[in-house]
């Protein structure tokens, strides 16, 4: 019980740290260039990156269960194109919004089965999916962008109480996932499977079924992210954003989800996604070339992982 308490405190520490870093970043960059804090810029930071935060929720579940998914960027690209094609080919808009969720869950259920029942390691299964999905997407679309989207399709441009809808999705889904992970038997089984697979098996938790469910949920959440991604502009780029899976994994890991599984919360990953978005925007306002963004992300993920390992060794 005590170890659980200290774990909770430990991950909460990560979240408080993230909030402090985000506020400090806003203060420093804002004092160098006041336009950074303009409402226009703040809105674009959140709206343009909320889908990453949403996808990071599912990724956190996957990593907590002791797995990894490098195909999520490609999946988001494929689902966004499917959504766009449905919308432009006269299907009802609600179907274009809903189909990515269902398809995402179905595709990832298949991946989950490969991992859980056929014992293909998650890195291999999802690496293969990455190549199948991204290769298939480019072959199918030829890299053409989808335009001529019908009116009322742009879900991500809607506002409620003057707050853009992606922000509502980000907050709402983070809270939902946090409740799911904390207060349901399923949530506890995800932690159990990730922290000690043998013990989980001994206490009657089906390892395979839990992993498949985690991947199915992750796929559905990826579908939501794909809809937010597809509906933010007037066109849909039919190529997979390069390195998107790394940004999402980095958000989860920097958010305090332990790479060894079993530990972490979804609040942290959402905060980390906000931090990345803010860093990306800061580079522009500080006149640093955006080409350094990925290097900064690499340093951040490496530093977090090393800190995680050091903390684990200290606590035993």
């Amino acid at each position, binding site marked *: 019980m005590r170890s659980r308490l200290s774990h909770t405190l430990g991950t909460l520490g990560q979240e408080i740290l993230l909030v402090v870093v985000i506020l400090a970043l806003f203060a420093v960059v804002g004092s160098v260039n006041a336009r950074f804090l303009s409402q226009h810029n703040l809105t674009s930071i959140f709206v343009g990156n909320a889908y990453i935060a949403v996808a990071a929720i599912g990724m956190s579940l996957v990593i907590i269960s002791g797995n990894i998914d490098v195909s999520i960027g490609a999946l988001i690209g494929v689902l966004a194109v499917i959504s766009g094609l449905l919308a432009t080919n006269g299907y009802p808009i609600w179907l274009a919004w809903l189909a990515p969720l269902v398809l995402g869950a179905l595709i990832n259920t298949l991946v989950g089965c490969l991992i859980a029942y056929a014992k293909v390691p998650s890195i291999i299964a999802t690496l293969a999916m990455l*190549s199948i999905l991204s*290769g298939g997407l480019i072959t199918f679309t030829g890299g053409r962008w989808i335009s001529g989207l019908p009116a009322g399709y742009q879900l991500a441009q809607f506002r409620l109480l003057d707050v853009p809808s992606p922000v509502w999705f980000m907050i709402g889904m983070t809270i939902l996932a946090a409740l799911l992970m904390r207060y349901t038997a399923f949530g506890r089984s995800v932690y159990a499977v990730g922290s000690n697979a043998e013990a989980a098996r001994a206490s009657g938790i089906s390892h395979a079924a839990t992993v498949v469910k985690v991947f199915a949920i992750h796929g559905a959440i990826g579908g939501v992210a794909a809809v937010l991604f597809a509906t933010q502009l007037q066109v849909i780029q039919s190529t997979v954003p390069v390195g998107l899976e790394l940004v999402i994994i980095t958000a989860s890991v920097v958010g305090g989800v332990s790479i060894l599984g079993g530990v972490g919360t979804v609040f942290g990953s959402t905060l980390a996604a906000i931090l990345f978005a803010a860093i990306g925007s800061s580079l522009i306002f500080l006149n640093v070339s955006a080409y350094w*963004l990925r290097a900064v992300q690499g340093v951040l993920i490496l530093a977090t992982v090393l800190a995680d390992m050091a903390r684990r060794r200290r606590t035993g």
Partner: protein
Amino acid sequence: MTAVTRVLVRHEAILAILFVVALFVLAAQSDRFLTTANLLNQARLMTEVGLIAIPMTFVIVTGGIDLSVGSILGLCAILVGVFWQNAGLPLPAAIVLSLLAGTLAGFANGVIITRFRVPPLIATLATLALYRGLAEGISQARSVRGYPAWFATLGQGELLGIPSQLWLFALVAIVGIFILRFTTFGRTTYAIGNNEAAAEFSGLAVERTKLLIYTASGFVSALAAIVFVSRVSTTRSDMGTGIELEVITAVVLGGTSIFGGRGMVVGTLIGLCLMQILQNGLSLSGVRGDGTTVVIGAVLIVAVLISNVLSRFSND
């Protein structure tokens, strides 16, 4: 041990039969396939993947993985161009410095994995982002062209009627076969993959062996970068993106267990050839480049499934 050897023999026999069947099918499909010119050209094209696949076989036999090889390739390619064109160094010096940088990058992977006990998957996923980020930051998306004519000999020339880089590849492959089969280092590599704790308690140099293997992986990735730049006569920061997938597919297809402990360089070579003629045959029969990555992904999953089934079979 005999059971393991039997499975290996069987796996390689299956592969060899598959290879011959594929040769016949493809030769029947296109009369441009089974010509010396085409086969030598295919061998030229597979050299970069093949080079990296040799140390990757060692990495996977220890039960590890190196996802950063494509980023090291990209970083080293950029560094050759930058050292030569921007820093004004003579090209041979630029090549040596770039090889050093790749070795250092691999060494850094090894240190993170052995000293800080970060799982190889996560360590190299982080450095995948970091090294690619450095390549992008350093190059600022500018490509370098205009290499002197002599430099093209390595990537485009011939020696005794055989593409020059194949001699280099053959040398690296023979060194790899020799070390893995006939040296203490090779036996330590297998021991680590079979049971790392046991290997450590038997007094084997586990840390040093792993450190050397990841360092070698970095060095050979840099070597592949030089061959790549020489072959295409330009340098771009996105070079080698996704090459880790092809490398890992070749190794796993070649019978090396993704869980470590068994595998041979010869198997990797057969896996590599099989993959290359599959890609070539597909493109000759009209499938575009992106379509072949779909096939590679599918082949990777099937290869792991077969290897899982075979190993379960041998356990009975």
